[in-house]
């Protein structure tokens, strides 16, 4: 059990708690004899909050037990710990780049954001061959545009200002 996992579980508890507070505003919006709009959200969120709280507590206890045990005998070798750290870093960076990709797409358009995202994702996956790094972003973006924009006519975001003008060259 890692500190990061405990932090993730704490965020889940905090999320359910925040949503629960929000749902309390819905409590009185109902007519006589009806459960009202707030019944299910309050029930679901309070249950989820309690259960995720239990999960967090059990994780903290597990972490403390493992910490005591590790003090006597480390569970993972330094090499294994390094690999694990590397894998987690890859997932975290992949998720961060994905979020950035979704956020910037309406501003800079699909073409540019996809080009940059594919390049970043390949680098995160530790691909270092130059021909793959150079060709993949262009090939993938071109393929997606041809298939989705030209063939099945799905409107992609063009971006704003200068970026919109750039996107109009392609679709």
């Amino acid at each position, binding site marked *: 059990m890692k500190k990061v996992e405990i932090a993730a579980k704490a965020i889940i508890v905090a999320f359910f708690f925040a949503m629960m507070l929000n749902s309390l505003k819905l409590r009185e919006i109902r007519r006589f004899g*009806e459960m009202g709009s707030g019944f299910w959200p309050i029930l679901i969120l309070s249950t989820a909050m309690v259960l995720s709280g239990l999960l967090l507590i059990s994780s903290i206890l597990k972490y403390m037990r493992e910490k005591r045990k590790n003090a006597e005998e480390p569970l993972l070798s330094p090499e294994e710990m390094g690999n694990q750290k590397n*894998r987690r870093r890859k997932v975290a960076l992949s998720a961060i780049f994905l979020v950035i990709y979704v956020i910037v797409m309406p501003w800079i358009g699909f073409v540019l954001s996809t080009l940059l995202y594919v390049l970043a994702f390949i680098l995160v996956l530790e691909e270092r061959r130059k021909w793959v790094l150079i060709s993949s972003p262009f090939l993938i973006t071109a393929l997606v545009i041809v298939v989705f924009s030209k063939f*099945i006519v799905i409107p992609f975001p063009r971006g704003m200002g200068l970026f919109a003008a750039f996107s109009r060259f392609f679709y």
Partner: protein
Amino acid sequence: MFEHYLTAFSTLFLPQNVLAMVLGGLWGIIAGALPGISTSMGVVLLIPFTYTLSPITAFAMLVSAYCGGITGGSITSVLFGIPGEPSAVCTVIEGYALAKQGHAARALWIFIIASAIGGIFSVFVMMVATPVIANFALRFGPAEYFALTILGLSVVSGISGGSVLKGIISCLFGIFLATVGTDGITGVERFTFGTTILLGGIELVPAMVGLLAISEVLLEAEEPFAEYKGSAHYRGLKEELPKFSEYTEHWAVLAKSSVIGTIAGSLPGGGATIASFLAYGEAARSSKHPERFGKGAIDGLMATEAANNASTGGSMTILLSLGIPASNTTAMLIAAFMIHGLQPGPLLYSQRPDIIY
């Protein structure tokens, strides 16, 4: 019922539908065989291509991709020891052991024929069971649907990833997402935070793509498949064609695994992976030679392949008759149904029998 099947056969064998099935099946096999792309992701990637197709052609393509994906996942398992699909993990154990002994072609024959037997069995079950369950489900009222939903959620919670607590929290999070937007009864805005984007709620398709497909991409990013560095002496497919007697010898394993696969596939939260593990475990338990398991046991390979392919028919039975997705891939098929303006379930059975049959 029979006239519906006859009409369905005549429709299905129209050139465009045959082409759709061939292309869908081929894509499914490729997607299943590639370790980075699972069957559900293969189906997701195919959905946009079906926008412009008629619903029948679209579903012929998507269901073919689904079945192809489950089969394709075992190709890399046998040849390289890399499961293309989670459901092909047991195939790696026996199939790859056979390949290392120089019987890769034999393992391929066995898995393809066992897959076909399991798949065909579950299709027959689907053809018989779907109308019966759907007709029964037409009599369902709100209480029965509520009970069915609770059953689905409790099964999902119980068998999701070993932690019941996490399973229940995930289910609750799913229900919470469904409450976002305008309440259908009172018209009150829930969790919209003043934006208009969330007024209509969170659509099922983006939610499923975001939660299922993207999480799989992240999982693959964490552990990309290892490069294969071994070598196996290859004998030709003709040389390695198994004798008919090998199948008759293991008929009980094939029958049992097909039944296990169909039942496990029909359980919400079940699917091909659980089906293959259950059938593999049962085959190992009842085998006369359990010591051969892990070293290229033919009955182990047959069991896992018959079961994971049989699960497709089980999942489709529940999807078509009750509108409940039993696996990730059938959840994606629900999204495809919705894109084509259809709602899977018992009503679709009476309203659009042309598509269901």
